């Protein structure tokens, strides 16, 4: 199953997206805990305010309480938003051609790196830890050819299934490449009119060689479609005969 639409810069129209992966929701839990823990004192203050309005009014602290509570609540909202942007805009994309890592760090740092499938050498998955095992998430390591940095999908759900799918896509991509190479090797040469194939590259090369060996200079010029001035042609033919004669006799040519 593929995902439609343009998901990253540089994506071509023919490119099929097979996986769009975000980190496991457990990574956002720390921000949710901040929100939940922050809501406790807010709820307590509101309860105090509603339960003992006379105390609050008598001490003239109601404006202070409103401002402090509002700033506190807005701070929690801001933390939740920051965490959500950081968590939700980190995306790993696997297409039939490449692996793309879009990394959002805060509001003002965004990195996009990609790796072509033919550069993938090995893919491993690792689930390491209590919560990782409990909630089925872990890291996927993509080892690359050459000096390129390895790709790591951090804290993604179902890492073994993702690793398996990347391996399958890599293998099918390599098979497609091999098939394409074979087609190029065996593809016959078509004539200009696009009719039936007439010659392979090898046959054409040998035919051209034999033609050059057998034909005279004049024939070669004629075959090449060159129009020669008659005076020059006669001189060239004369010289050509002299050279041919000289060569057959095995003597040096005086140019």
């Amino acid at each position, binding site marked *: 199953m593929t995902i439609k639409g343009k998901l990253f810069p540089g994506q071509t129209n023919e490119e099929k997206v097979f996986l769009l992966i975000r980190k496991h929701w457990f990574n956002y839990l720390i921000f949710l805990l901040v929100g939940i823990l922050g809501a406790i004192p807010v709820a307590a203050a509101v309860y105090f305010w509603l339960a003992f309005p006379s105390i609050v009014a008598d001490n*003239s602290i109601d404006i*202070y309480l409103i*401002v402090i509570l509002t700033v506190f609540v*807005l701070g929690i909202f801001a933390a939740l938003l920051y965490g959500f942007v950081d968590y939700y805009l980190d995306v790993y994309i696997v297409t039939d051609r490449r692996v793309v890592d879009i990394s959002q760090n805060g*509001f003002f740092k965004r990195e996009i790196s990609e790796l072509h499938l033919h550069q993938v050498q090995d893919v491993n998955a690792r689930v390491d830890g209590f919560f990782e095992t409990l909630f089925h998430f872990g890291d996927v390591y993509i080892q690359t050819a050459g000096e390129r940095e390895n790709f790591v999908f951090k804290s993604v759900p179902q890492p073994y299934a993702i690793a398996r799918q990347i391996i399958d896509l890599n293998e099918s991509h390599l098979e497609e490449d091999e098939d394409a190479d074979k087609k190029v090797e065996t593809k016959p040469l078509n004539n200009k009119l696009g009719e039936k194939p007439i010659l392979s590259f090898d046959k054409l090369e040998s035919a051209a060689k034999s033609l050059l060996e057998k034909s005279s200079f004049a024939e070669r010029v004629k075959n090449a479609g060159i129009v020669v001035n008659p005076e020059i042609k006669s001189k060239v033919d004369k010289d050509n005969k002299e050279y041919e004669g000289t060569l057959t006799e095995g003597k040096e040519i005086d140019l």
Partner: protein
Amino acid sequence: MTSGDNIIIILYLISLIGFIIFSIAGVYHLWRFGYSGDLSKPAIIIYTLASTAVVLLSLFLISIRIFS
């Protein structure tokens, strides 16, 4: 209203401006880089509604205290 009240209201308005700028940056990122059909648009709506409600409520309560 005392001078202390004035100071805290001014501080509140300054922090409110900072919060609005921060929110615009965050919402812009979600709107710009989120994909259609994912949770980015619902998150923008929920965040905007919730924070607007809190700010309006606080301004309403403060204005009641000031003008009462």
